[in-house]
């Protein structure tokens, strides 16, 4: 059952169109990813859902509510982690949670919540003395303090080290397992692939596709990548003219050839004919980032 419905959402800042006719639905109990490059309009989209912006067009329903008209009720049911938001420097973690808990009719027990987030020993620590990862977890705690039905988490692992990132992923799964629908905004492929039941791909304000990670990848199935470092200069045109090759990219000394069919054979034949040795040769199956390139003609992260 759909808990969030977005139809033809349009949002313009001054003259710049940030979101241009985006539609999707989020089902109850799923982790729904919104994936796209910087400036794609992800934050703008979810902030319209949160009722922080008034859309210029389209309709939004969250658990049957209109985010602008039913503001107050929406805020009681929706937990939000903003992309950029801090707390006062000197507030203690426990104080912040206690304060925010008082804003809701039936709040979660904040001590229990802190323990679940691995912050039990930080309750008396001032916000400014927390590490980046700990701040992020406090932010998640504040999003969950009101026992929301839906939690919207915007870029929750940006700036975290790999270990903290994986810990946070486990946490998001726990939140979902506790029955909360999660909307996760990210520009990390790996994060989306690992966590999301379904993903909306957004590029330049437009919705490119909505599908499961596997479903997105299957759209480029059969596509592969050959990566190598030519020992001598190589005319790229020799590769691009092959029927198996869809495109070639240069990464410093490395060449990345994407294509279908017997790609490896086709590429190595060309190299052999030109007597060029390929060092560090690797072959990779298509993933979510290839799906993104295929669907938008652009790369997700540069």
């Amino acid at each position, binding site marked *: 059952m759909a808990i969030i419905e977005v139809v033809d959402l349009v949002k313009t800042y001054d003259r710049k169109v940030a979101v241009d006719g985006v539609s999707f639905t989020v089902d109850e109990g799923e982790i729904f990813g919104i994936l796209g490059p910087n400036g794609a309009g992800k934050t703008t989209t979810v902030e319209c859902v949160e009722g922080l912006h008034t859309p210029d067009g389209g309709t939004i329903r969250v658990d049957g509510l209109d985010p602008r008209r039913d503001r107050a009720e929406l805020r009681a049911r929706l937990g939000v982690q903003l992309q950029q938001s801090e707390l*006062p420097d000197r507030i203690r973690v426990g104080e912040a949670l206690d304060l925010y808990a008082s804003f809701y009719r039936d709040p979660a027990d904040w001590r229990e919540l802190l323990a679940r987030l691995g912050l039990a020993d930080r309750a008396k620590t001032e916000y400014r003395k927390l590490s980046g990862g700990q701040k992020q977890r406090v932010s998640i705690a504040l999003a969950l303090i009101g026992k929301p039905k839906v939690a919207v988490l915007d870029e929750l692992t940006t700036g975290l080290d790999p270990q903290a990132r994986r810990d946070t992923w486990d946490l998001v799964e726990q939140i979902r397992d506790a029955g909360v629908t999660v909307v996760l905004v990210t520009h990390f492929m790996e994060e989306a692939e690992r966590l999301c039941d379904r993903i909306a791909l957004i590029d330049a304000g437009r919705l490119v596709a909505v599908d499961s990670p596997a479903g997105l990848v299957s759209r480029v199935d059969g596509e592969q990548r050959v990566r190598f470092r030519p020992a001598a200069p190589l005319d790229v045109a020799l590769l691009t003219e092959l029927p198996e090759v869809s495109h070639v990219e240069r990464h410093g000394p490395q060449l990345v050839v994407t294509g279908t069919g017997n790609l490896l054979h086709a590429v190595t034949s060309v190299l052999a004919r030109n007597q060029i040795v390929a060092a560090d040769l690797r072959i990779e199956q298509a993933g979510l980032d290839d799906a993104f390139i295929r669907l938008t003609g652009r790369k997700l992260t540069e």
Partner: protein
Amino acid sequence: MLKIVKTEWKLFLREPSMVVFAVLFPTVLLLVLGAIPALRTPDPTFGDLRFIDAYVSSLVVIALAFLGLNKLPTTVASYREKGVLRRFSTTPVHPARLLVAQVLVNVIAGVISIVLLMVVCWAVFDIDLPHHPLGFLVTCLLGLLSLSALGLLVAAWAPNARSAGGWATVVFMLVMFFGGAYLPRFLLPDFLNVIGEYLPPGVGALQESWLGVAPDPAHLGVLALVTLVAGTVAAKSFRWE
């Protein structure tokens, strides 16, 4: 709401510079000035009052001006810059509550600061307490509210915390100057004194109520008007993000 005020109050107490300037500074300044014998001797230029007698109302101005025009706008602007206000908007509680809580914290701090000042005035220097306590209380309150409204106006219009600090300082200096905090008021030309009497926080009304007459309603009216106008404009034009 009570919890927001309580939390903001705790945060205020944890900023040592704020507490020192808003609560202790006027009293300390009184003690320092009072330690100078010449300033403790009645002088015919002040109508046989001592310098410190005449300067007390300016000390009150210092406390009120600091709270309304320094602490308030810088705190509010930094809350906006850090996204504290924005995070409030995602909860069932409107961020305006946070601003109201700030003003209430100002009132509490102002009361403590002025009571402390009065106690030292009375116990150490034998300066009379305000002769018209009710008028004095009303004037202090209106004075602080009018300065807080101006402070919020600065915070509403300033693009970021840094420029809020800058703008607030300009207004702060003006208020301090007209309030006689830099140059005692009897050294200022008459026309400046007249302006100062009406300007928030209403040093004219402060002095009157301290010396025993009910404050001039015109003075109080100006303060109330400033509070109302600046407060409304600030509320209407406030940017939450």
